[in-house]
Structure formats: C-alpha cells, structure tokens
C-alpha cells in the first residue's frame, strides 16, 4: 500500500464528478439513507454519562495532592533526608531540617525532622517520583480529586507543612482501623 492511498481515518473515499441519474437527483434514496443512520444511532449504547449522579471510574494510578504521613502513634514520618527534593524533576520541593528536642519525641519519629517542607504546586507535575524516592514512607500522592485549589496569589501555591501534613485526627483514625483489623 502506498502512502498516497493510506487513509488515516479508514473512511477515505475518492470523489468523482460523474453526472447524477434522475433517481439520484430526486435525493429520495439519499434522504432515507440519512434518516436510517440517525435512527440507528438512537438505539446505540450511550457514550455520555449523567455526570453529577454518575461518576467515571478513576485510574488506579491516579496521583492527587501530596500528603506527609504520620505513623500509627501520630508522629511525622518525614526525616528531611532530601531524597524527594533530589528526585523531583521539576525541582518543586524544598526543605529545611532541624534537630528534634527531647520533649518532641511524640511529634517526630526520627532524630531529625523537616522544620520547613514546601512544595511549589505550580512547579509540581504530579509524577510521583518523590513518593518513590522516600525511604521513610513519608510522602504520598493521595487520591484527592482536588489537585491545586485556584487562587489569585502565587504565594498560595507554595504548600507548606500546614497543608501537607496529615491531620492528626486522620492518623488517630488510621491507627484505630489498624488495631481493629
């Protein structure tokens, strides 16, 4: 098959300029043909859905907004090792480490923790490499459908620990669920 005759859509027809016969000029056959196509589509399976009531199935690899996890005792997993920032192809992650004080043992799991942890959501491409690089199971991309809420200020898109760390109630609930199972 040569490149000239290839039809990308599979419906290519060569147009001819031949004179129409009397029957063809009445267009009756053509109209009936067209109506038949319309009728045929009426009985086809619908490809649209009733959106708010029905929701399409999500991909199992869907990656939504990040979350910094807490362990079952409610302590932050992140130890500011910097591997997520290193692996990030968009260079969206910055962090600053600090040493855990003696009275903060219930807050942070390791000796070192992230004092500042920021993800620039305007840069993030949601590739999930940070999740893959994390040795402490700390950062996860959730199935949250809200990726980045709209805002007028650029500063609002730099998510700090206040927006990223898992809420304590959620950690408690998870721990209870784990214990129940």
């Amino acid at each position: 098959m040569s490149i000239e005759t290839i039809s990308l859509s599979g419906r290519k027809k060569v147009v001819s300029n031949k004179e129409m016969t009397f029957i063809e000029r009445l267009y009756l056959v053509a109209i009936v043909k067209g109506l038949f196509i319309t009728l045929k589509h009426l009985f086809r399976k619908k490809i649209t859905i009733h959106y708010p009531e029905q929701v399409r199935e999500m991909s199992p690899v869907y990656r939504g907004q990040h979350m910094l996890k807490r362990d079952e005792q409610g302590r932050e997993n992140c130890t500011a090792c910097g591997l997520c920032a290193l692996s990030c192809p968009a260079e969206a992650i910055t962090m600053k480490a600090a040493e855990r004080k003696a009275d903060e043992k219930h807050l942070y799991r390791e000796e070192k923790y992230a004092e500042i942890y920021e993800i620039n959501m305007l840069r993030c491409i949601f590739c999930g490499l940070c999740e893959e690089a994390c040795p402490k199971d700390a950062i996860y991309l959730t199935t949250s459908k809200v990726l980045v809420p709209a805002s007028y200020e650029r500063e609002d898109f730099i998510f700090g620990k206040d927006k990223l760390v898992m809420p304590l109630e959620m950690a408690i609930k998870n721990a209870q669920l784990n214990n129940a199972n």
Partner: protein
Amino acid sequence: MKVTIDGQSIDVEPGTTILQAARMIGGDLVPPAMCYYSKLKGSGGKCRCCLVEVSKGSEADPRPMPKLMASCVTGCMDGMEVNSKSSARVTEARKSVTEFLLINHPLDCPICDQAGECDLQNLSFEHGNPKSRFIEEKRTFEPEDIGPNIQLHMNRCILCQRCVQVADQLTDNRVHGVLDRGDHANISTGISKAIDNEFSGNMIDVCPVGALTDKTFRFKSRVWFNKPYNAHRECTTPGCCGKTTVWMFGGEIQRVTGRKDEYHEVEEFICNSCRFDHKNVNDWVIEGPREFEKDSVINQNNYTQKLEKVEIDTEKNILLGRDIDRKKISMAAIPLTTNDKK
C-alpha cells in the same frame, strides 16, 4: 619489582603494599578500603574490605597464598600475581565483609550527615546485599558529648581507628581511644572529656562513616545540595596549610572540609579554626569549583547529562492499544509493522 594485578603489570619500589600498587594502576581493580589511610602511619589491616587473592606469591616462590590477603598490609614481592576484582572468591569475601560491617550499623542514612560521601554507603552499594539477614537487635551505645565541634555517633562506628591515629599523629595529646573489648568496643574519651585540640577536626574527614560529624553542619543541609569549591586563606595556625574545600549553598558557606582525593583521603590536614570558625565568604579566597567524580552524588539529578535509555516492559496490549480503539481510529488495512503483513 614487577607486580601483576588483574592482568595489569606495574613496577614498584620494594616495601610497597598491594593496595598502593593497585592505586598506582588505578581504575576498577583498586580494592575498597575502609580503615587504610595513606596519610596515616600504621593504618590498615582492620576492616578486611581490601581482601585480594594472591595467585602467585613471587618469582622465587610461585605458590599461591592459601588465604585471601588484606592488600593494605601485604607487601609486594617480585613477580607477584594478584587477582582483585576478577576473582569470584574476592567478590564473595567482600560481600561477606560488607555484611559483617553492616550488622551493627544503624542504617540511618536518611538522618546521617555523611550520607552521600560515606565510604560504607559506597561499599554496600557495590558489594552489599539489599536485604539484611540479621534479625537480632543491633548494638547501641549511649550518646556521648565530645565537645562543641564534633558530634560522635558511636552506633555508626565501624572501629577503623583512623580517628585514633589522627589524634596520635597530628596532635600531641590524645584524649580519646578505643575502650572495652569485643562487641562492647567503642570510641570514647573515657571520662567524658571534650576533645579540643586544634587539629581534632580532621577526625571528621578521616572517618569513613558518619560516626564523627561536624556539629556546625549538623542537619544543616544534605551533601548533594551543596557545591564544593576550592578555597584558601592565610592561616596563622602552625602546621595548617589553609587549603580547603568549602561547600556552598548559594552564597553561603555551609561547611569547610579538607580537599579529598579520589580515594576520599584529604590531601592536607587543616586546623579547627579553618574548619569551624570561618564560615564567612569574605574569609576565603575562592579558587573555583572543585572537580567531583562523575558518579558522585553531587552530580545526581543533573538532567543535562546524557541518560541511559529506559526500556519499560509494558504489556503488549498497551503498546498496541485497546481493540475497540484500534477499530475506531485505525487502519485495519495497514499493519503496525511490516512483519504483520502475512
């Protein structure tokens, strides 16, 4: 004297060890060394990482040595033939030694400041097993404060004793050493004295693991986020060369270390005043960026370098597309590849 290591020959002076001869040749055949330090007299022979197989003792006595030899303390003989990387026995032995070294190591690399320039990390990356067979509890020590500048993490120590030799050979008065025996052996000042000698900071540079780290750099940044520059200053301390590597993040000096060569040994020792007290850019004459190895961690995430092509094992159907899609858009008449024509 002629020595052959992994098929490569070199002429060396009498008294050269196999490890030194291997380093003269360079390349892949150089055995890893955790305790040997060429600038410290009497170092070596402790970690057993540098084991090599001597397949021919010498020209006079060509019998092979029955056991693997520690190359850092075995002298070369004329006509000696050594197998380093080419020997399966050696590879197996290094793997086992690595496993032994990692038994009591806490593996807290995400926290450790040495991560990224750690010899033990490199060793286990090359020779180690990603899974640990050790199920017992690891040996731990109480944290000990050894002064305002140096942080001691005894749990990470592999007892190479380089730091003891530094104290012996660079300073006039050593206040720390190996205490206790066997499993309890640990580096300590004994009666919790601070180490405050002017050259004590070199212990940080010679430490192959993160047991001795810089307190002024503690948790400040990760090694790979900083850029190393060669720098020097007029140092008034007797015995200090003033030539250092400064690790910069933006315009800030994060830490100062000695200049380390390809075997991670400092070229010249520096004093504590250079290392800990001068963190201002104006104190230094910056000569230029320091060269680092191609596979160094500082070079990671550098997307300008040429990356290897990644082959992803996808299912056949993903590459071909779903059947329904193919019917819709495609070209049943046109085969995907020329092979499908028949």
